[in-house]
């Protein structure tokens, strides 16, 4: 690599806005933006897969999010590798060295997944109020929600809970003012420009518009979650009888 190229890459790296900070004395976050945006999330995913492949000792978890990536590390192990530097600074240097991988975003990990969803008022208790608020009929809501291909920006909140986006502006709606104590497993919800599915029964504040009969968490599988960060998801509308058929005979 020529010196000129090195200088150029350097300049490019530092031209990218980023912010690196500790989130504890054994955890670090690299923030690449403040918006839900495919380009930024592509960079997050590139870093995620690069860090996974590097298998750096002492890094216990690599957690991608919308516009940031965080590492949970073991300071004791890091100190063995680099006794003289602060573990934070050591990990920070590794993380920042990954910024050059932005040049070649790795999109090989994206899978296309379609998810059957029954948009019935018995399964989507907020459908009617959403229709009212947005002055749409339920058919239009279904049409808009199923038209888009959503990206799994990140997984969190519950095991396997995929934060997907972006939801069409016509369906954008705030979280419920007071969360439900119990949201059924499989419920499909909207919060702002995000959409997601609850893999477990749990309390939750997202506006619920339907339910999938698919079991999104299989503890016996080596990869127990249905989704992975970076997946591309499209919802397919199904009728109530088909929902119960699939729910009762999963195969």
């Amino acid at each position, binding site marked *: 690599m020529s010196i000129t190229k090195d200088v150029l890459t350097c300049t490019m790296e530092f031209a990218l806005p980023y912010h690196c900070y500790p989130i504890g004395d054994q955890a670090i976050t690299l923030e690449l933006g403040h918006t839900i945006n495919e380009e930024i999330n592509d960079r997050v995913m590139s870093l995620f897969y690069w860090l996974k492949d590097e298998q750096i000792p002492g890094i216990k978890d690599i957690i991608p999010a919308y516009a940031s990536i965080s590492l949970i590390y073991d300071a004791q192990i890091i100190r063995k590798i680099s006794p003289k530097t602060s573990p934070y600074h050591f990990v920070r240097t590794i993380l920042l060295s990954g910024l050059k991988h932005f040049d070649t975003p790795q999109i090989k990990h994206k899978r296309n997944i379609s998810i059957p969803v029954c948009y019935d008022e018995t399964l989507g208790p907020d459908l009617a109020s959403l229709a009212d608020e947005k002055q749409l009929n339920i058919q239009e809501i279904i049409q808009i929600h199923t038209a888009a291909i959503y990206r799994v920006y990140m997984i969190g909140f519950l095991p396997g809970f995929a934060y997907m986006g972006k939801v069409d502006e016509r369906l954008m709606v705030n979280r419920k003012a007071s969360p439900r104590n119990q949201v059924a497993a499989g419920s499909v919800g909207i919060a702002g420009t995000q959409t997601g599915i609850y893999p477990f029964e749990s309390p939750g504040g997202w506006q619920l518009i339907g339910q999938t009969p698919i079991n999104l968490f299989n*503890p016996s599988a080596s*990869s*127990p979650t249905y989704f992975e960060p970076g997946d591309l998801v499209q919802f397919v509308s199904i009728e109530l009888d088909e929902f119960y058929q699939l729910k009762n005979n999963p195969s």
Partner: protein
Amino acid sequence: MGIRIQKQGMADSLRDGGRFGFQHLGIPPSGVMDPVALFVANTLVGNEPDTAVLEMHFPAPIIEFETTTLIAISGADFDASIDGVEIAINQPIIVTANSVLRFSKILAGARAYLAVKGGFVADHWLESDGTQLLVGRGGFKGRNLQKNDQLAFKQTFNYHIEEPSLLPWRANVADCYLGKTIQMIEGPEFKLLNDASKKIVRENSFVISNNSNRMGFRMQGASLELREGYECLSSAVSMGTLQLLPDGSTILLMADHQTAGGYHRIAHASSAAIPSLAQLNVGETIQYQFISLETAEQTLMKQQRYLIQLAHACNFRLHEYLANE
């Protein structure tokens, strides 16, 4: 052969250092609340430091040993006795078949840990023996222990002795617990607090409210305000993070925290302070002491060095004792 739960405690579960490597899938580590107690209890019985132990709250369980083994209790002192004879924490004990371990009251701390030589047979799920309650995997059948549960030991321990016996050494871990002053480093959104709120966090005290558990401690105290409204995108959180909720109250995330969150991160408890936090009961008052990241790293290193020395000493004593039998 192992233990049988004669009476269940409030929330007894098998825990290890945590299930790491799966947080990108939303699966939290859910390890022990008190990592020092995990290390010490295991070290005293000659286990690898991360071996799953029984985490107990008060009221604690009544435990019957079905066979002879070597045990140690660390963390909280719940006034333990075996067959009516008081026993100390942080000391290895050989228990005999049919002996019964009871805990009568809280003398100090909030979570006690029982290690047995070789560890408990557990449901190994995603590289950890620890319990994951929501998924219902890991630990003992993925749940808290109940009356009459029988937990087997991974190893047998052949030692000829008539009655339970304390081995003649103790681990001194006093320096690992720093009391009610919790060392913190500033979080990324600390600077967004208004000046009055910054002063409150630095100087006021906060009470651990009733609404606290392994997920997090809801802190009761003066309400905090931001200088300006500012939405955070969800991102990863870590154990010890002090989050600001929209109503001005705060929550300190503990071992069962979710993997990601979108609330403002005011501060983070230093790793060396986590054991102290884990041993606080609901209703206790704490104060934050802000330190630099470098100081937090140094303090943790000092704690870890001390524990390694302790482990060497314990291994030496145990080896010598068992060899002379």
